[in-house]
């Protein structure tokens, strides 16, 4: 006769396991200038003279993984080299077509979104992943010494709300 004695902890047990990967979304907008994506730093706005006006062309690109409904661009005045100059003379314009940097024109009617007198402006057009808003800043030549930096902020509330899914 065989007698086996096992402690209770050595009794029969059964186990099942599975793994699953969860990943999260991102949201953000970066300035793009001449195909360079400016990330993790403010964008210093360098105005380049052309005739009686100075310009800077740049884009605002959705670099996150979600469509965003709005975002904010803060205008940071860095340096005013000549106090007689007027930040309000700097015009920020948006082109929903394409800028022609040679003729200084937009393929559709451009929209003024702010002046340098503002502390910020908001873009409220939904922006898909990878999509861009085409922008430019311009100012009379006498004003080009005004130093601006742009800072782009995208809050959580600019992406879709939470959803409940079943599958």
């Amino acid at each position, binding site marked *: 006769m065989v007698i086996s004695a096992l402690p*209770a902890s050595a*009794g*029969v*047990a*059964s*186990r*099942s*396991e*599975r*793994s*699953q*990967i*969860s*990943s*999260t*979304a*991102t*949201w*953000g*907008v*970066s*300035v793009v200038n001449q195909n360079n*994506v*400016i*990330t*993790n*730093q*403010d*964008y210093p706005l360098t105005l380049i003279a052309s005739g009686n006006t100075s310009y800077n062309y740049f884009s605002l690109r959705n*670099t*996150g*993984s*979600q469509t965003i409904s709005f975002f904010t661009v803060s205008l940071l005045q860095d340096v005013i080299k000549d106090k007689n100059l007027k930040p309000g003379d700097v015009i920020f314009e948006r082109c929903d077509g394409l800028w022609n940097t040679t003729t200084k024109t937009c393929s559709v009617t451009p929209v003024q979104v702010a002046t340098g007198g503002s502390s910020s402006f908001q873009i409220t057009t939904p922006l898909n992943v990878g999509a861009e808003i085409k922008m430019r800043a311009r100012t009379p030549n006498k004003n080009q010494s005004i130093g601006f930096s742009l*800072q*782009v*902020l*995208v*809050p*959580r*509330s600019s*992406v*879709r*709300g*939470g*959803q*409940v*899914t*079943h*599958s």
Partner: protein
Amino acid sequence: MIEATKKKRTWRPLAGAAIVISVAAIAGQSVLASLNATAFNTTAQNINAGTLKLDLANSGNGFGTSIANVVPGDVVNRYVTLTNSGTLNGIGLTLKTAQTGTSSLITDGISPITTKALKLTVTSCSAAWNTTTGVCPGTPTEELASTVIGSLTSATALAGSTLNSTAVRYLQMKIELPDQNETTVNGALPANTVQGGSVDVTYTFDLKQRLATTTNS
């Protein structure tokens, strides 16, 4: 004369030994010839051990499909089925998780960090879940209250801790990323962000055999 006496004394011990051996042989033959009796069951008794087998199957996507692009506030319900396909009733049903990946998705931030990690809630249904609508056609029971995923590394008892042989437990595994505010500046994710993270979670269900019993019959 003396020589003759000595010869007589030499053979006497040999004769005595022969007598003793003879008596022993006769006595031994009488023991071997005693009666014996044997009893046994004509049909062998079958004794078999029970089995305990816990099967985990996906119901719908279950754990078989990754969860991607989660934003704060999202709730993702996945459905799995546990079956005790063994012959033994099971007790002490527990769940634990092991996870690797982005730490902010595994454990809540500690002040001043305010990030909130993924949470898991487990609910069973007495009948199979509708994995499209999330409707339980029977009676739902909360098996595990909402718990941060990183707090489940030790085996945690489910509310319904028994699972009898052939019994099925229909589970809804609810993963949620609590709503929270983060602002991305200049395209760079903030420190300790929950954005752009990834976690690989392994869910482990354990079941023990029923208590051993002594029976008389």
